[in-house]
């Protein structure tokens, strides 16, 4: 690891906005927040994956991956982060290095690749991602990007987050650091208003941001930049002129919020668009901070009235599902971040939360879960697929909400399952989204297919067993 990357990682592990981090001794803080991975029992993405996820939604730049085919070839265009305009971010670009590049270095190929993409696609900027192999052979992407920026007169941004540097979450932060180092503050907006905000850590999955934006528009609040969902390079470059920052996903890019506060004095708060209460709180916080920053005070009253109308409508729409959903048991397996923010809304529809994962949740998140659900809720750090399967098969839950990787645990146990992670197709943001989520839960549970698949075969329940399975049981 280059000295600069090392210093950078140490830097992101000093997080003034995190209580746990600040509670550590200097020595412990240097070790970072990353749990040591267990070989042979690890799952999840790498730092490169994290950096790419964090920045890929910036829609009008070329995202060029410098490395062998696996890093981009196996992962491009795999998330439904929506753009209202440019589609260039969905094009996969990679240097696809070969054996000779490993031996002689891939810097020349990278430089030529940058020239090619500028010639062919003319983006406002190119983001160049480092990977394990090119980092290991010593390709200096920062130097290549510096030279290319001088030569071609366009910002060529190095994203130095090779996979082996750490897990996905570290990559989110390193990607964010690149924005702070090379992008934010390099341009001035055409004009500013007292209602300008940035939304940080929002990826506009399946267009979710667009469920929220009309609310802000109605209040006259302008989104100066979103980082990164439906983002544009020039907007993000001039994001430092916003009056308020909202941090959406509490862990992924907090360093942008804290450093923008240090550098430009922009206050920030952490909020969520998932769930009715959270949506309303977020609107209130935005209004409060904007007024503190000098916006006219009538914003507060207007916000409250909007919230009142929207909340009443949302609860009324959820109410109609109550009769069908009351008492149904939900198992939440979300990686933890979003758990508490949707629990309240699910409870409003009469659903009972029987368990939730807290793997990625902070202490604060855990407190909130306890507050919402009482002490007897089953919080688990890391449920094995086998435990999950057993829980579903023994019908201790009626539906599981989780990401794509665990869906088959539910489906093989012949249990309803709803995708609430990044590969999903339904948007669940704001007052609109939570109603959609409850409707999808109802749709999943009410589907008659569950009765069908649970009818045992007439010739005995073992009809579909393949011989191999019994062999394993005996092993």
């Amino acid at each position: 690891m280059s000295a600069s990357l090392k210093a950078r990682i140490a830097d992101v592990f000093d997080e003034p906005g995190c209580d746990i981090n600040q509670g550590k001794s200097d020595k412990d803080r240097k070790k970072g927040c990353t749990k040591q991975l267990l070989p042979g029992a690890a799952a999840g993405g790498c730092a490169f994956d994290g950096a790419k996820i964090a920045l890929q939604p910036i829609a009008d730049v070329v995202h060029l991956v410098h490395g062998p085919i696996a890093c981009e070839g196996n992962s491009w265009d795999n998330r439904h982060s929506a753009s209202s305009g440019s589609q260039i971010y969905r094009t996969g670009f990679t240097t696809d290095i070969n054996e000779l590049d490993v031996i002689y270095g891939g810097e020349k190929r990278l430089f030529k690749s940058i020239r090619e993409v500028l010639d062919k696609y003319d983006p406002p900027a190119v983001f160049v991602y480092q990977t394990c192999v090119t980092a290991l052979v010593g390709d200096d992407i920062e130097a290549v990007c510096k030279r290319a920026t001088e030569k071609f007169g366009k910002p060529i941004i190095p994203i130095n987050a090779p996979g082996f540097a750490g897990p996905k979450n570290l990559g989110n932060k390193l990607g964010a650091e690149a924005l702070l180092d090379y992008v934010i503050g390099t341009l001035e907006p055409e004009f500013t208003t007292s209602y300008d905000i940035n939304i940080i850590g929002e990826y506009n999955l399946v267009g979710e941001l667009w469920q929220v934006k009309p609310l802000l528009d109605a209040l006259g609040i302008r989104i100066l930049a979103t980082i990164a969902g439906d983002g544009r390079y020039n907007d993000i470059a001039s994001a430092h002129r916003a009056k308020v920052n909202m941090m959406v996903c509490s862990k992924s890019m907090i360093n942008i919020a804290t450093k923008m506060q240090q550098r430009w004095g922009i206050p920030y708060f952490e909020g969520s668009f998932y769930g009715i209460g959270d949506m309303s709180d977020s609107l209130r916080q935005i209004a409060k901070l904007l007024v503190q920053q000098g916006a006219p005070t009538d914003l507060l009253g207007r916000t409250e009235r909007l919230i009142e109308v929207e909340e009443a409508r949302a609860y009324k729409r959820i109410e109609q599902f109550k009769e069908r959903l009351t008492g149904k048991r939900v198992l939440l397996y979300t990686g933890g971040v979003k758990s508490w923010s949707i629990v309240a809304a699910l409870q409003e529809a009469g659903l009972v939360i029987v368990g939730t994962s807290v793997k990625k949740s902070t202490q604060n998140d855990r407190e909130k879960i306890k507050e919402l659900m009482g002490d007897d809720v089953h919080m688990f750090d890391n449920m094995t697929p086998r435990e999950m399967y057993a829980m579903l098969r023994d019908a201790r839950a009626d539906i599981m909400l989780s990401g794509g990787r665990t869906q088959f645990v539910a489906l093989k146990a012949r249990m309803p399952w709803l995708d609430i992670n990044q590969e999903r197709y339904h948007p669940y943001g704001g007052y609109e989204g939570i109603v959609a989520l409850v409707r999808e839960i109802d749709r999943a549970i009410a589907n008659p297919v569950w009765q069908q698949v649970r009818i045992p075969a007439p010739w005995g329940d073992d009809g579909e067993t393949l011989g191999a399975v019994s062999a394993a049981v005996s092993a």
Partner: protein
Amino acid sequence: MASVIDSKKACAVNPLKMSQPLGATLAFLGLDACMPVMHGSQGCTSFGLVLMVRHFKEAIPLQTTAMNEVTSILGGYDNLEAALVNIRNRAAPKIIAICSTGLTETKGDDVDGYLVTVRKRKPELADTEIVYVSTPDYVGGFEDGYQHAVTAIVRTLVKPQPVKADQITLLPASYLSPADIDELREIIETFGLSVIVLPDISGSLDGHIPPDWRGTTLGGTTLAQIRAAGASACTLGVGEQTREAAQALQEISGTPMEIFERLTGLEVNDRLLQKLAHISGKPVPAKYRRQRSQLLDAMLDSHFYTGCIKVAIAAEPDLLLAVGCLLTDMGAKLTCCVSTTKSTSHALLPAGQVILGDLEDLEHGAADCDLLVTHSQGRQAAQRLNKPLLRIGFPVFDRIGNAHRRMVGYSGTMDLIFEVSNLMLDHVEHHHLGDWPLTSEALQAARSMTASVSQNISEPGLFEPRLADASA
């Protein structure tokens, strides 16, 4: 026939190629009670896992040695040993199958050497077979990784045995679906022969519901079957990519081999059935005689929609050959062919040239074609060009039922022909008013008759409804 041209670009845009370790993983997923492991950073595994899940819609057992920066530089022995012990303790697989990645190959980890040491240090692994294949990301592609993995399985586990005259070994190509493998097994068994399929994803990735949760693969070639491959009377391979493993079987146990460059199409299947009749000494069953006749009829019915269409196709070498040849058999012209790596298969392709490139090359070459053929990542290009897309190969993540799509045997060939034809039928061009405007000379000529008539004629609406009626 086709000449191979290297795309001279420095930057691959919209990659076609998938990495070697992913291909190796697919091969390992066809072994029963197996846990595949990628020796690399956890991202290598995570990306591959997500793609596999999206394609097969199945839980995919796949582990990682979770290399970090320090272990990458100092060497991955400790991680590899820890991974093997952890997997043995947690999932108790019969086989742990390891492939390397770009990261550990660049460092130069001597995994073969590591495994010798692990065996000495960890007697608790004595009941677990370990297969290793070297698959750097920066060499070759998916098909190559699969090919080398199958060879590694053979070289590690097959031992010479007395020959059983009625047993044959089938080596499927990486692009065959679980349903394809089932089809071939059925054909072979109808001749009274028993068959060992290596690897057999029809047992593990066919989308069945097992009675219990298992951490390893849910089926596939068992360890006993792999070992028994040494007794087969013959090895049949599908695709040039199986030659390496067939040769390894020949070296180990002297098994004669025959490689079918494809099993999609009429004549290649005639050849397969003749070969099986020869080995078994039995006539071709009535069932397949009838299927052959059905295929002929299907080809006749479909040729209207496939004749003379221009096809832009991008796929790995053996799949390109299989689908490209069938389309050509059906009257299509391969106007743009893109592939991933060099292969002897390209020499057989009925096309002028094959570009070793990416989906940008396909998109550029597809401007005047009628049909795009590639994996799901071609969907953006198809949308931009507004052309139908036939999804083939890996990954196909925006369609379900991939495990049950067939393209081999008479009936599988028929399935693929129907799919192509129906796709073309959906895009039959509808003509509109004004599709056949008169030339200016004709108009001028018509106008010059008399001044009063020419004013009417200059409005095209007057004559063209009649033309449209006539064409309808």
